[in-house]
């Protein structure tokens, strides 16, 4: 996974990106039996750019909060415990 520029991937503009180069998240399979590192490696290989991909007909870009250290796990835990 060395040599992959994640910063450049994050900066991809959803409006100008070449749609044909994007992979579809529907085709991605994550094997949760694998160790964490392997899971990640395989995910990146399949999705190409984890910040910009296709989801059916949609082109999806994902961005994250800059000024918080809260993780998805934290948020999910909070949600589940208040349900």
């Amino acid at each position, binding site marked *: *996974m*060395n040599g*992959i520029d*994640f910063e450049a991937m*994050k900066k991809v503009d*959803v*409006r100008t990106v070449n749609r044909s180069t994007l992979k579809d*998240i*529907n085709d*991605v399979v*994550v094997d*949760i039996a694998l160790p*964490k*590192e392997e*899971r*990640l*490696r395989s*995910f*990146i290989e399949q*999705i190409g750019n*984890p910040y910009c991909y296709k*989801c*059916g*007909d*949609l*082109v*999806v*870009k*994902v*961005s*994250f*909060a800059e000024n*918080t*250290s*809260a*993780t*998805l*796990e*934290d*948020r*999910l*835990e*909070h*949600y*589940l*415990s208040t*349900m």
Partner: protein
Amino acid sequence: MARVSRKNKAQAILEPIEHVYNTAIYIRLSIEDSGTNSSETIETQQYMVEQFVNAQKDMKLYSLYQDNGFTGTNFQRPAFEQMMDDVRDRKIDCIVVKDLSRFGRNYIETGYYLEKIFPFLNVRFVAITDNYDTLKNSSSDDMVASLKNIVNSLVAKDISHKSATVLHQKQQNGEYIGAFAPYGYMKNPDKKNHLMIDPVTAPIVKEIFKWKIEGIGYILIARKLNEMGIPSPSVYNYQNSRYKAKKIPTGKATMWQGQMVKQIINNFTYTGNVTQGKTVESLCNGLPLTKKDKKQYIVVYGTHEAIIDEATFRRLGNTIDEVAKKRKANSEKYPFTENIFKGKVFCDECGQKMIRYKNAKKSAKTRYVFLCNQYAHNLQLSKCSKKCLGEPELINAILLSLRAQVELTFSLEDKLKKLKSTKKYIAKQKKIKTDLVNTEKLITKNLLLCTALFENYTDGTIQLVEYNRLKSDYLKQAEELEEAKNRLLKAQVLDGKILSPQNEWIKAFRGQKDTTVLSREFIELMIDKIIVSGYNDVEIVWKFADELAILTEFVGGAA
């Protein structure tokens, strides 16, 4: 009788002086940039609080939060909400205000913040002129603060009561009390509660009514007006300096919208009769903003010159009502679902919130889509491109993205196990269990008492009247206990289910394409905003940190 234990009385825990508080300054003014009196301007308020904070050794200014033009009678204020978000994110642990009334004028909610939320989040709160500091306070100070909160609240209610009486009287007299005259009219410079024709805009109102009578829709009329280059009501008011605060109209207000046209068509005031009291809100009576029925409007006839004659207005109204009725009947055939993305979906080009539209075509399946309001109203004129984001597609994209992230970073099963073993969860389960046991005991006791009562009656200890009265009491009690038991049993089942793989929400993560599980609360917690930049292009901005980058760096480095 047992004496109340004094052992566990709360004692103020003094923080060590070495702790430096990340301090937030909060300032608020009800009416934007009001206060000609120098002690009341927002600048003096800010200066005073800043001076105070700078002089404190144990405070470090984190940020200033300012609500200019927001009432203290509720807490729906943008800067206040931002501040509370930062409190929850532990960025600040001290709030300083000039006085308690700046924080809030609703004593119930203010008290809730001061006595429950802030102590719980460990936040220090200082009101300078009230000499209130949660760090240094004794219990008598707390009492004074509570009283001040009540007084602050009463001041607001008193003003509400006084002004409401006067304003209501004015409405009854046919005096126009709105802040701005309806489009097409202007306020008489000599008699400000009297409307007179605005020679510039009145012909436009006439034209709008003419178009509507010809059967043109609200949105098309708005588009027409924009194409003709006619300034929107807000822009017109601004150009003619009718706004006291020199606020330049932004967003939707800069162009004609269908809603604005609709308001004109439905405003009976254009027939020369002042029509007011369409909505009512009363702080002193605890009444939130409520829409009144058309029949309850306060109408005073013949108060000013008409722009449209009454007969035509009523005829037009009837046709519109009929069309609306038909449309409503048609639309009710399709189910309405809550907009869980309310306030979250934005158009990339105009930056405004996109509207959620029910696409109920006879041929196709009903579905909700998000449209750019600007484009819908003005097409090319709006400078926005056509966008149409389907809600099911959006939900699917969100679930898939979340699922991938969960699968990559942690195990849901472990999470559930962990949550189930938390003290809070165990305590809750335990409480339900003991409550159940206790209720069972009470039920048995009740039954025994009932039997004993009957024996008392048969052996003549009590009379029939007494027996009947007591019996009905016991029966009622038995019923209540039975209900309580059922409630507890239900809670027990529900609680067990929430944190199990049977939880619907977790099932959705497991790949079952059930899209009804996302809730408004969930979206609010997880998503900052969703930006739609093209017909099918969408950016999801999460409310949590990017773990992918951190993890991949780690993995990349290890490889």
